């Protein structure tokens, strides 16, 4: 699943560690999300959407 996490993070000048702290996950998790190695659960996806003030669909794009 593609996502705009890296772009959204860069727009705010946050490091992966900054985003990880805000999401209460590890930096490795943020890296796995950004590189598309891991798709978040719905609760985490909602948390990400709330943090960036956008809808889930605006951040994550289904490749199917």
């Amino acid at each position, binding site marked *: 699943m593609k996502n705009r996490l890296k772009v959204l993070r860069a727009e705010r000048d946050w490091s992966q560690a900054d985003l*990880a*702290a805000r999401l*209460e*996950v*590890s*930096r*490795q*998790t943020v890296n*796995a*999300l950004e590189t598309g*190695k*891991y798709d*978040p*659960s719905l609760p*985490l996806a909602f948390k990400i959407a709330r943090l960036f003030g956008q809808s889930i669909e605006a951040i994550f794009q289904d490749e199917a």
Partner: protein
Amino acid sequence: MNCEWNPAARRYTVRILAAMTVYAVVLVGSLTLLRSRELEGPVLWLVASAPALPIFGAIATMGAFVVEMKDEYQRMKLVRAMIVATGLSLSIFTVLGFLENAGAIQADALWAFPVWCGCLGLAQVVGAVLDR
């Protein structure tokens, strides 16, 4: 690691250390009793199997760690490694069981948990390499 991951890891470390300390004490006590006395029946079973109780505690601690982990990606990786370790150790002991059945070796079921732990470590290393 993050602020949610650390408390669970700390609790896990404390619990595992406590379980292993109790294990060492109970094991020494059990072996001492088994060697110094002619135990029979239920008492023999109780004393001989007593060191398994703290091992149950260690296994429960691992389960609690999975439940208490707040980071879902780290939890997924750990659970994946545990599944691989279970498959690997079951395979190893199936082979050992057949070898023992044929009289080729004398397998020791006591090694089941240490072998599983070894397989878990191996699975985590392989998982970390593959996730790079």
